[in-house]
């Protein structure tokens, strides 16, 4: 059920400032696509345009097309709330709802759906999602404890469980490991490898080793200078990007010559 994303001619603005300029790319289903690039190059902004989160920021505005299979996310009559339900997101810092238990956190999105979910069914969804996020064994005995009591890495996996519980087609991850220690990072990376069997995954990362480890395809973003909009430089198979990129700037960035 994972879907293909097809972006064409996408511009995003903060007020009058153009943050990303004319991006077109295709993200394959059931694969991991990594976005890399220097700070401020617009990769996170671009990620947020893929589930219409960008327009939530004051002044945020988007032009262009994002096709999810054959539906344009920015087409007329499209409900952003349904878009975000179909395209899930995991954030840089783990953000479980502080007032909710582990169970309620995972169930939060499902409960929103409104139609009364039976308790047994909800139990099943919570268990399946926590298992899917490799967290079940660690928390199954304390599902009613607050989610904020978990370690950082566990919290992030809880957020992933919460995101996949609503059965999205695509999972966006915005530097999901940057606030975590190396062991937790490894756990998340393994998890990403498993999740791509079922979801289309897009991950923004600052860590190039991570991009090389987890992704099938890598997109390199860059900006001409401070205040300039970010651009997509190239997107290709990860192996190629890291061994033999077709653009000089990509090679410079990857070999650490700048950024």
């Amino acid at each position: 059920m994972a879907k293909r994303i097809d972006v064409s001619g996408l511009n995003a603005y903060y007020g009058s400032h153009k943050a990303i300029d004319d991006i077109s790319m295709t993200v394959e289903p059931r694969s991991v696509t990594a976005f890399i690039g220097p700070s401020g190059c617009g990769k996170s902004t671009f990620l947020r345009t893929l589930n219409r989160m960008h327009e939530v920021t004051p002044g945020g505005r988007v032009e262009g097309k994002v096709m999810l299979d054959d539906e344009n996310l920015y087409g007329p009559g499209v409900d952003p709330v349904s878009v975000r339900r179909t395209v899930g997101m995991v954030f840089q810092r783990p953000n479980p709802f502080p007032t909710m238990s582990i169970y309620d956190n995972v169930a939060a999105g499902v409960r929103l759906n409104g139609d009364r979910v039976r308790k047994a069914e909800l139990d099943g969804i919570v268990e399946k999602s926590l298992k899917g996020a490799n967290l079940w064994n660690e928390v199954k005995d304390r599902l009613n404890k607050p989610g904020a009591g978990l370690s950082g890495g566990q919290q992030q996996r809880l957020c992933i469980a919460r995101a996949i519980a609503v059965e999205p087609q695509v999972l966006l991850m915005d530097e999901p490991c940057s606030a975590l220690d190396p062991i937790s990072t490894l756990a998340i990376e393994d998890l990403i490898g498993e999740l791509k069997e079922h979801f289309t995954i897009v991950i923004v990362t600052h860590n190039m080793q991570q991009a090389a480890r987890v992704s099938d395809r890598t997109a390199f973003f860059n900006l001409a200078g401070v205040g300039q909009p970010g651009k997509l430089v190239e997107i290709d198979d990860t192996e190629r990007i890291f061994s033999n990129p077709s653009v000089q700037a990509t090679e410079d960035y990857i070999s650490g010559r700048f950024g």
Partner: protein
Amino acid sequence: MSGVTMNKPLVADSAPKAPSGLHQPRLPRWAPAALALGAAAVGTGIGIGAGLGSHVQWGLLAAVLYVAGMFALAARVEGRRQAKDRLATSLVWVCFLIAVVPLVSLVWETIARGIKVLDGNFLSHSMAGVLTIQPGGGVYHAIIGTLEQVGIATAIAAPIGLLTAIYLVEYGRGRLAKAVTFFVDVMTGIPSIVAGLFVLSFWILMMDNGYSGFAGSMALAILMMPVVVRSTEEMLKLVPNELREASLALGVPKWRTILKVVLPTAIGGIATGVMLAVARIAGESAPIVLLVFGSQLINNNPFEGAQSSLPYYIYEQWAAGNEASYDRAWAAALVLIAFVMILNLVARGIARWKAPKAGR
């Protein structure tokens, strides 16, 4: 820990119950506005038709119609979740309107009715020789009273408040500081009438002094002190510690460091806080009723004999209960509001003007 393999296919694969897609039936963008107009029209219609006397009812009717109508419409077209969202949105808007109406009316009434008799004559004359039922007379004596009482109160409260805040921030450790902090909080909550009763009991009843502007000033000072302490404390805490340490490390004594480094850095914020406190006590009338007693005449001496003040004057003119005195009450209210607002605006002006300095 990541070794758990997934036996079952994950959620995304299992139940393809996703609704046809991303398109949800939505109400057109103009729907809320149209409905609001409709509700207002129907509310007015019912109001006129049923001969409801007060416009309050018309408004309430229209509001209820709008909220209910929006909910029903959204529930039909967009579904239950969206309908709840619409309900919340319309309630929030209605709250806003409910609040705006009386507040705008208050300002409007004061200006519209106050402007009638407000002129140079009104500002420069007292009520001496004016019968309350006659038009004429003015607020000069009340302005003098307010300025003197507030001035003395500020002269008492500002230094004490300032020094207390300095003590709490720069020196305060241990039990005394804790006690002071706690009681400043307590003091913030004292009703103004209680502060008035206190001064009444010890200054007038026990020490047998007469009613005077000064007695009122003492009560106002009690009300003002905690406000000054709180705001000054906040401002001093904003001064970065590095500044103090840099100065101390140069061998500058602590008291000079405070006077020459800390206070100048925070002076904008402190001034703002004091001005806001002044604005607050300038409108206080309860202690004045108990302690200053009121007067129709100009009394320039705050330490001897009854005085008036702007808030007291408004109360007195209202109590006189005739058209001429109501006009004077509104005009005085306008003068008082203008005074308080100017203080507020100046205070905020200072804050804005000095703000970048504090951040440096």
